[in-house]
């Protein structure tokens, strides 16, 4: 059973080719990483999985259904997205951010409140419930965006560079969150440009460069195949 299947996905922005015939499949329950430098096409691909960007050509299947406009709301209801940019509501408090977001999923107020409370405890932000989000540090904002993506208890979680720009302690905390979610059976897709992160968290890694997937394998196989650490493999693969 696959959670996501991409078949020859290609995306042009005007004349710029952002994705070049990308094919992959992600099994349910897997933690799948897309590793690549800035501009490799990772975010474009993530946006395609939740229907924000439509491919110029190719097909994408998410949670067993071919993605198209008619079933987009139904599919998106089962996805959690943690975007790269901070798009929290700056005028609302920490708790309000979660509650307003839960309404988009049509979650009942009482359920949403309980869920928000548990998620805030889960990441240690409960004491900050009524604080304005402007008051939060970068790491705390990241954590809030992270749990906002969990408010609908998604089957598929998309993490777009979840730790970029964080200090080592905050990064460690986010890693722990991802580790604990892996045991819950959710399918997790993450993008990163840190080899260490991909190696530590992912069951499978797809290396991307210039809109293409160069290879897909487990971190162990990659190490064996190339007889070294992933970083070395990465630099060899992406040489100009």
């Amino acid at each position, binding site marked *: 059973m696959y959670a996501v299947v991409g078949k020859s996905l290609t995306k042009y922005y005007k004349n710029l080719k952002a994705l070049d015939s990308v094919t992959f499949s992600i099994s349910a329950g897997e933690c799948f990483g897309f590793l690549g430098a800035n501009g490799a096409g990772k975010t474009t691909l993530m946006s395609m999985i939740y229907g924000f960007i439509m491919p110029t050509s190719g097909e994408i299947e998410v949670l067993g259904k071919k993605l198209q406009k008619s079933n*987009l709301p139904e599919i*998106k209801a089962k996805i959690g997205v943690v975007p790269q*940019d*901070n798009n929290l509501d700056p*005028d*609302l408090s920490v708790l309000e951010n979660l509650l307003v977001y839960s309404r988009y*999923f*049509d979650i009942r107020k009482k359920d949403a409140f309980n869920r928000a409370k548990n998620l805030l405890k889960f990441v240690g932000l409960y004491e900050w419930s009524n604080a304005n989000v402007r008051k939060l540090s970068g790491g705390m904002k990241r954590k809030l965006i992270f749990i906002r*993506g969990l408010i609908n208890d998604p089957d598929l979680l998309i993490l777009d560079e979840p730790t970029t720009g964080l200090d080592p302690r905050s990064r460690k905390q986010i890693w722990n969150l991802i580790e604990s979610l892996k045991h819950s059976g959710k399918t997790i897709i993450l993008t990163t440009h840190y080899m260490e992160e991909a190696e530590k968290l992912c069951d499978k890694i797809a290396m991307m460069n210039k809109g293409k997937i160069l290879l897909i394998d487990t971190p162990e196989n990659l190490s064996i195949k190339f007889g070294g650490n992933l970083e070395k493999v990465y630099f060899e693969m992406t040489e100009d």
Partner: protein
Amino acid sequence: MNFKRALRVWQRNATVYKKLYRSSIALNFFEPMFYFLALGIGLGGFIKEINGLTYLQFIAPGIVMSSAMYAACYECTYGTYVRMEYQKTFDAILATPILFEEVIMGELLWGTTKSLIYGTIILIVMLFFGLVNNFEVLLLLFYLIFCGLIFSSLSLIATALVPGIESFNYFYTLFLTPLFLFSGIFFPLEEMPSLLKSVFQFNPLFHLVNISRTLFYVGINGFVLYESIYLILFLLFIMPLPFLLLKRRYLL
């Protein structure tokens, strides 16, 4: 388009407004009141009457409409632009089951709500001035919604077309200000040269002001219904445009 999901977007804006309205309500309230008092009392001292109305009576119905117009415009230009480009609120919402056209519909309905809120506030003030002696003026609430839909749509079109937030100055100065001044709020357009007069027949605010004034002092009649037809046609013509143009701006 699912209406319930569009209302979720409306609801988000309402939640934020409920928190912040104290800091913005004055702006939308005082500006029309300054016009009303300065011109109505100041200029009104020199003008005997227009079509049997004192000058204060003459301009009051138009001030109600124009404040509704500006409320929708501020919301769907600066407000929508900030949500779309700076706060990335659209990005956040589009990662949930809500679709793009539902976001735009939510914005449109929210701009319309702002028209209704501010138009109603000014209308209540006019009631306190004892300017209305007609129960049918309550029908005006329905036309404030009309006003909101029309000017929210026009503003969202501007939002889809501006290269940056500074460019809204053009929209306000070159588009809205002439609509405001040549809408028949401050003087009857009958005295204008016939060319200008026919140009401003296209001004939706002109027809809204006509309706407002009639409801204030006469009540519902054939003229109000006749003017409504123009507004319905105008609205049907422009309402699809924000959806098409914003989609082109945002998703490509």
